[in-house]
């Protein structure tokens, strides 16, 4: 068919669609698409299924189909606005190749089988692995897209009933550094503030965060604040020019990893000018330092434990002398006057400042450190835990906070506390009804080490739910080949075929989002519930129920003694019994059903918008009228850590002269397994590409659309060039989005990680660039 014929038939199809909408029941010889009558359309609330913002949506349901979406005007998160992914989210349920049956691999071929048979096989293989190779040869890998019940049941089954701590989630690749940042500075995870800070702040500083594309609904709220208040400023600190830089009042570009030096220089400059809050420091802050030269974790079985040394304020100031604006100009490429400008914003007592970040600071070989250093700026000035003032770590997945951080699905965590803490283990054993010896006191494998163990053969059975590691793991080739080795049994629960289902021995079809009941927890500690609105297609089953079915087949059913009708409210009741404490009290099931979302802690049903401030937080104690109380640490102080600048794990050199940065686009979410099946989003960005600076492109003779070959020490890839599209990297840098399973940029990335958080750095490695 020629292009002309194709366009003619598209024009005709469009007319048929339009006719059937305007003239109900109209029929043409050429075929008629069905549209449904709007009679009896009902609207039901849910959080959006994509990023961590947690927008409230209203889904239009008609005849067991989701047919439309509106932003929920009652949601405090988005107040009725969505982004293009949210508006079209329900279309992701209806991709033609939706997995509706279970498959089992037989002689290399995936054969469809009844789901009961597949679940029998999963249970028997899991038992067999434990009998032959021990409990720690089995593991489960989920994600921040697990609903809270999914993650809670996975943790109870593996950590409690089976007795292995090999429970991880792809949130390790996404916000582990945010967790360790919060824990080291405040002793408790998750932000003190909330999105309402946007409505009060005067200055927004974005640290490596392209919010216009990645958190567009919050960015719009910020633009709205600026539109109504001319004095409001947005400053974009980044290594690449983006739509966010375009919208900001000031864009400041720095060299990769130099944010560490930059944050220290801002602190130095504020102290030099006396722009710090001495009383706040005396009452609420203590000073610390840890190990330096901490490595990059690129070798197997890498171990690291940090050490705390208390220091004085003067010692802290002394260490900052290495980071004068002039010295840091050389490291970061940021002019000293811009560093002084940033210090004047943070330091001005008349300005309320919020800092936002996401993957730029989390996917960082010194991810924990950079979080500590940005907290320092807010602590030095006392700009924290009040409306419009505070650091805010955004999340990338709908329930990275709710499931992974709160319900505890990282290897060292429990629903309350850590596996290393005896009291926490006892609490879990009591609530789960298992012997306390079942819960191992040592953490198991973190994500990168989990896939290394699968390659080595230390891990033999891996169940992967709601995530696509064969696109997202760094240094992908090693982990793909490792997972395919003889003697490994991989179970994948998903809704569409992906590169991860390609390596599966069993595929379980999952019920998606509104096809089952669940809860998510967003970036601002808000828990959001939705009811089951649709029947899942074919044999598809929720991830929670798959786990329960396997547990029953293994003879562990007594721990999961619920019916399908009551399992979600029962799980919620059991899970929240871990958190009956004013510091973490969760909303009741009834309150979640009735509201678009409820923020914790909510003792007595009252939400806490700002933690550590007695005016808003009942867990904080006011002393002599001073409401600030950092109750997470034993000394009831927030910890300022001195952390030095250290270089990235791999830097450009003569052989590999370019920095490679990876990330997302507004249209696609993560590996695109859902968003690429939404026609409008696929048409907008049909494939991945490499962004180059126009000067580099000219030097290499590359024009827009030319094929470009990228090579790193791990692998090579050919893809089209994009010059001055929606982003412009600095000279000597390239950027590639990671959503495209046909252009797997993670073949090139490096599996170096932050030694404290174990989160890999997807933003920095070295590549060659040439015309293909």
């Amino acid at each position, binding site marked *: 068919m020629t292009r002309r014929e*194709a366009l003619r038939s*598209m024009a005709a199809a469009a*007319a048929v*669609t*339009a006719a*059937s*909408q*305007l003239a*109900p029941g109209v029929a043409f010889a050429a075929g008629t698409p069905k*549209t*449904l*009558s*709007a009679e009896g*359309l009902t609207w039901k609330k849910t959080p959006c299924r994509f990023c961590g913002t947690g927008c409230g949506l209203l889904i*239009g349901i008609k005849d067991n189909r989701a*047919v*439309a*979406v*509106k*932003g929920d005007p009652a949601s405090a998160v988005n107040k*009725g*606005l*969505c982004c*293009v992914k949210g*508006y*079209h989210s329900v*279309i992701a349920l*209806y*991709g*033609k*190749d939706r997995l509706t049956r279970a498959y089992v691999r037989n002689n290399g071929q995936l054969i469809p089988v009844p789901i009961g048979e597949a679940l029998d096989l999963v249970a028997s293989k899991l038992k067999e692995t434990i009998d032959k190779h021990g409990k720690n040869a089995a593991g489960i890998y989920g994600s921040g897209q697990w609903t809270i019940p999914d993650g809670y049941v996975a943790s109870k089954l593996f950590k409690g009933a089976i007795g292995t701590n090999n429970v991880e989630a792809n949130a390790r690749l996404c916000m582990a550094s945010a967790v360790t940042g919060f824990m080291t500075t405040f002793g408790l995870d998750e932000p003190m503030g909330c999105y309402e800070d946007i409505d009060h702040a005067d200055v927004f500083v974005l640290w490596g965060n392209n919010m*216009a594309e990645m958190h*567009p609904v919050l*960015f*719009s709220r910020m*633009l*709205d604040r600026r*539109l109504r208040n001319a004095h409001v400023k947005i400053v974009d600190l980044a290594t690449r020019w*983006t*739509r*966010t830089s*375009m*919208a900001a009042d000031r864009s400041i570009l720095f060299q990769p990893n130099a944010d560490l030096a930059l944050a220290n220089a801002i602190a130095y400059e504020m102290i030099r000018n006396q722009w710090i809050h001495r009383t706040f420091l005396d009452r609420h802050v203590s000073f610390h330092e840890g190990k330096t030269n901490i490595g990059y974790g690129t070798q197997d079985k890498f171990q690291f434990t940090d050490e705390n040394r208390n220091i004085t304020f003067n010692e802290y100031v002394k260490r900052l002398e290495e980071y004068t604006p002039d010295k840091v100009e050389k490291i970061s490429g940021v002019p000293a006057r811009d560093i002084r400008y940033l210090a004047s914003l943070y330091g001005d007592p008349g300005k309320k400042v919020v800092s936002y970040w996401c993957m730029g600071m989390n996917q960082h070989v010194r991810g924990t450190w950079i979080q500590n250093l940005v907290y320092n700026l807010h602590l030095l000035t006392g700009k924290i835990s009040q409306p419009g003032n505070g650091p805010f770590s955004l999340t990338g997945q709908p329930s990275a906070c709710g499931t992974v951080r709160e319900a505890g699905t990282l290897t060292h965590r429990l629903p309350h506390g850590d596996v290393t803490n005896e009291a926490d283990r006892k609490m879990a054993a009591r609530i789960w009804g298992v012997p306390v010896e079942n819960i191992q006191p040592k953490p198991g494998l973190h994500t990168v080490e989990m896939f290394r163990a699968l390659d080595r053969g230390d891990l033999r059975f891996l169940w992967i739910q709601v995530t696509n590691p064969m696109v997202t793991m760094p240094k992908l080739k090693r982990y793909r080949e490792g997972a395919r080795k003889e003697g490994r049994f991989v179970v994948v629960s998903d809704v569409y075929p992906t590169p991860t289902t390609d390596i599966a021995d069993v595929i379980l079809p999952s019920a998606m989002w509104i096809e089952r009941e669940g809860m998510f927890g967003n970036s601002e500690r808000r828990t959001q519930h939705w009811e089951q609105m649709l029947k899942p297609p074919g044999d598809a089953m929720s991830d929670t129920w798959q786990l329960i079915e396997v547990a029953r087949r293994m003879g562990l059913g007594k721990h999961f003694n619920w019916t399908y009708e009551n399992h979600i409210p029962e799980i919620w009741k059991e899970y929240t019994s871990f958190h009956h404490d004013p510091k973490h009290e969760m909303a009741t099931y009834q309150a979640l059903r009735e509201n678009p979302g409820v923020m914790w802690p909510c003792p007595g049903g009252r939400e806490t918008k700002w933690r550590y401030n007695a005016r808003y937080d009942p867990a904080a104690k006011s002393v002599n009228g001073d409401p600030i109380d950092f109750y997470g640490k034993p000394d009831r102080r927030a910890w300022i850590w001195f952390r030095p600048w250290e270089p990235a794990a791999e830097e450009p050199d003569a052989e590999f002269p370019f920095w490679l940065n990876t990330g997302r686009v*507004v*249209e696609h979410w993560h590996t695109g397994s859902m968003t*690429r*099946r*939404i*026609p*409008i989003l*696929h*048409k*907008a*960005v*049909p494939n991945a590409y490499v962004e180059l600076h126009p000067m580099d492109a000219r030097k290499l003779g590359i024009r827009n659309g030319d094929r470009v070959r990228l090579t790193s020490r791990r692998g090579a890839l050919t893809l089209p060039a994009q010059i*001055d*599209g*929606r*982003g*412009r990297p600095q000279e000597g840098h390239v950027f590639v989005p990671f959503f495209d399973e046909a252009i797997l940029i993670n073949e090139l990335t490096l599996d170096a990680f932050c030694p404290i958080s174990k989160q890999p750095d997807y933003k920095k490695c070295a590549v060659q660039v040439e015309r293909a």
Partner: protein
Amino acid sequence: MGDRLRYFRIAIATALMASFIFVLGETVVESQRPAVVAAAVSQPVPELPLESGVFRDPSDAREYRWEPDARNANRSLASFYQRRAYDGAPPPVPHKLLDPGSFGGGGCLSCHAEGGYVRQFKAWTPVTPHPDFLNCLQCHVGEQSQGEFRGNVFQTVRPPETRQAPLPGSPPPVPHGLQMRDNCRACHGGPGAVGEIRSTHPQRVNCRQCHAAVAAPGASGGEFTRPVPGGQP
């Protein structure tokens, strides 16, 4: 006779003018006195999100009177719905983005805030019903290809029917929701409007004086029945 009437008119006009100057003078003097009423503490006025755009910028209403022939409209209801995944979904951008590096904002709004004829596209620009939102490309994305990744079988419901006036000649009610569509004239007034639903009287600003919103959130539908203690008579 004619002359006398004319002189009479001139006399009346002169008298009116004199009294106007007097009143104006008084007003000017008045205005020089210091104000005695203290300004209220500036509190944000609570906004009704669904009503906020109804009286938006009536200054240009006169221009909307100018109406090209409806048969030449470059937007029809058919194309309007064809461009959207469902009634209420944000449509993609049908033309090349002038600056893909931009987030939208002034670049998009330079045409889509006020409308007007664009020679390059030979079309009247559709006006956005929600010009307060600036991050346009958050919802309205470009189109770089026409194919689909794996195919999709999503279905939606029919959009509301037009012309649901209860009596011949009575003003039809608003058959759609008003979320993100608070400026009626964006779609119903001026040359960029959708042909079939173009208002014959866009210069009248207070649309909802006559056109009731049947799709108001919380509207239960059905007929009014009066609950009577002890049952209906």
